[in-house]
């Protein structure tokens, strides 16, 4: 349903061209939930912003992103607008800044239906009200008339989720939906996403660095580093037995209250490479305990690596 092939995104900056996404390919089947994991510089967000046509003007994109058979890259804005918000929706990280401050919740939700489903404002607002109740916002009628700043963080995120589901999209891209929220609200939002998935049966691309959320929701996990996919495996497999050293390190560093307390907090030495740099060989080699001379010269390709997993590593685990 969503097919990304050889996607490359570069940004034109004053002095150089910076590659944010290098040759990324991934696919989502209908109804599937894929967790896209990575840290700063991984390119995970840019990949999906490209699908939504939301990259800045200084972005140079090549490759292909096909959604329900239609090519999205370089599609005309009018064509793109038929798809986004309706068949393909996106939820953003910070619901405070991602909702328009001077429009009421009701208007922001209803306009999606007015625009895509051709409903009248009255009918659209009624449906929006229903959706607010579906996402478990109490006192929905009053909330419809309120402005985003009058709602709490958790409620705003529910509004965003509800807003994205109004046209019953085939795919919802959730970009760090829990990062800006308190831990006790995380759980509620993840549960809500799971419930909505059961009810609407849409596919979800969950972009997150929160491995707990990914573990709870994802069927499959894609790990990105320095603009490339480094591992791709079913969720159960990847948490039990990661193949790529970066994935293993990431799991080791994840905050874990259940495990015993360690004396030194785990971390990966060094830092991710500067996106402006073009490195020969594996981008993770500088920080990898298993790296050898070959890793520094020859970039590993994404290959099958035990069962349904794929890893881009010369010395997978």
């Amino acid at each position, binding site marked *: 349903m969503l097919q990304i092939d050889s996607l490359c995104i570069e940004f034109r900056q004053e002095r150089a061209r910076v590659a944010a996404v290098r040759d990324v390919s991934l696919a989502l089947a209908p109804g599937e939930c894929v967790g896209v994991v990575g840290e700063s510089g991984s390119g995970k967000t840019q990949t999906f912003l490209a699908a939504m046509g939301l990259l800045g003007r200084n972005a140079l994109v090549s490759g292909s992103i096909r959604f329900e058979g239609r090519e999205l890259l370089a599609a005309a804005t009018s064509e793109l607008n038929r798809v986004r918000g309706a068949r393909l929706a996106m939820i953003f990280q910070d619901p405070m800044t991602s909702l328009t401050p001077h429009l009421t919740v009701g208007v922001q939700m209803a306009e999606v239906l007015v625009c895509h489903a051709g409903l009248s404002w009255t009918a659209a607002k009624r449906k929006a009200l229903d959706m607010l109740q579906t996402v478990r916002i109490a006192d929905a009628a009053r909330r419809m008339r309120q402005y985003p700043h009058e709602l709490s963080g958790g409620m705003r995120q529910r509004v965003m989720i509800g807003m994205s589901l109004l046209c019953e999209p085939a795919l919802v891209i959730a970009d760090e939906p829990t990062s800006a929220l308190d831990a*006790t609200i*995380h759980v509620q939002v993840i549960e809500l996403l799971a419930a909505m998935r059961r009810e609407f049966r849409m596919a979800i691309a969950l972009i997150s660095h929160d491995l707990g959320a990914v573990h709870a929701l994802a069927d499959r996990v894609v790990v990105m580093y320095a603009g490339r996919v480094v591992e791709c495996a079913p969720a159960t497999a990847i948490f039990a037995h990661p193949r790529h050293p970066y994935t293993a390190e990431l799991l080791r*560093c994840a905050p874990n*209250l*259940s495990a015993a*307390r360690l004396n*030194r*907090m785990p971390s990966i030495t060094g*830092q991710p490479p500067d996106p402006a740099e073009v490195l020969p060989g594996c981008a993770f080699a500088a920080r990898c305990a298993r790296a050898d001379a070959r890793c520094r010269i020859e970039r590993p390709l994404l290959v099958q690596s035990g069962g349904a997993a794929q890893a881009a590593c010369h010395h997978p685990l």
Partner: protein
Amino acid sequence: MTPDGVLQVKGLSVQFPRRTAAHPPLMAVLDVSFVVGPGETLGLVGESGSGKTTLARAILRLVPAASGEVLWQGLNLLSMDATRLRRQRRDLQIVFQDPLASLDPRMTVADILGEPLDVHEPRLTADARQARIAAMLDQAGLSAGLRDRYPHEFSGGQCQRVGIARAMMSNPKLLICDEPVSALDVSIRGQIVNLLVDLQRDRGMAMLFISHDLALVRHVSHRVLVFYLGRLIEIAPRDSLFAAPMHPYTRALMAAAAPDRPGQILKGEPSSPLEPPGGCAFRDRCTHARELCAGSVPRLEEISAGHFVACHRWRELPD
């Protein structure tokens, strides 16, 4: 007797006035008291609206306190005049959450690290000054060649190292860390936290470590304070808190962080700090709430060595 390196907070309250005098002020911090000993790390845990950040700022008089005392080595910081306070600030430093935003973008690293020396040790020779800056860069894990760079040229982790280095320049006896690693990638956090722990151990300084990340707090703290809507609801030594949390909110926090722990999954949101429910602030979300919880605000009671809980019904709670 001046208790060296000891911070004692007594009955500290911080309020923010509302738009009209008709409305009661927003109580951000309510009657908080605790002690930090030299070389001790106190973890402050809570979510948004808990008041932990406001508390830290009030201790340093970055925001005005409504009532209470902050005794640093026996002297009340809140009633000091500006000159004396400035001298005390040498010993009390803070590291902020957003690494890049906390650094002046027009100052090089060398300028940033040199400024505390200019303020507190103006009689240093130029050579001694350079030597101190170089030594600090090294301790913070930054290469010497970075001294003439500007903050925007650094990654988040490096910026935070600069922020920590700056805080350490005046050899503080107490370091407040307000969510020092929340804005950093998970794989880098350990580097910064380990740096802080090493610095603390080497210099015997005390730390107030504010974070919403329980695993992180468990790692660094000797004792932990849990906040909810401006009040201190549980204090305990680290192991005691994580092995046997008592307050229902603490348990809920743990359950959210580790699904294998018992504790209710919280529904709803914290009530607005503008309209706190009477009695225990947590009762509108607590599954164990009963009528008596609406009566009065629960006081901290000692339930075992060093373990205090503010809950009317702690005796009746299941284990």
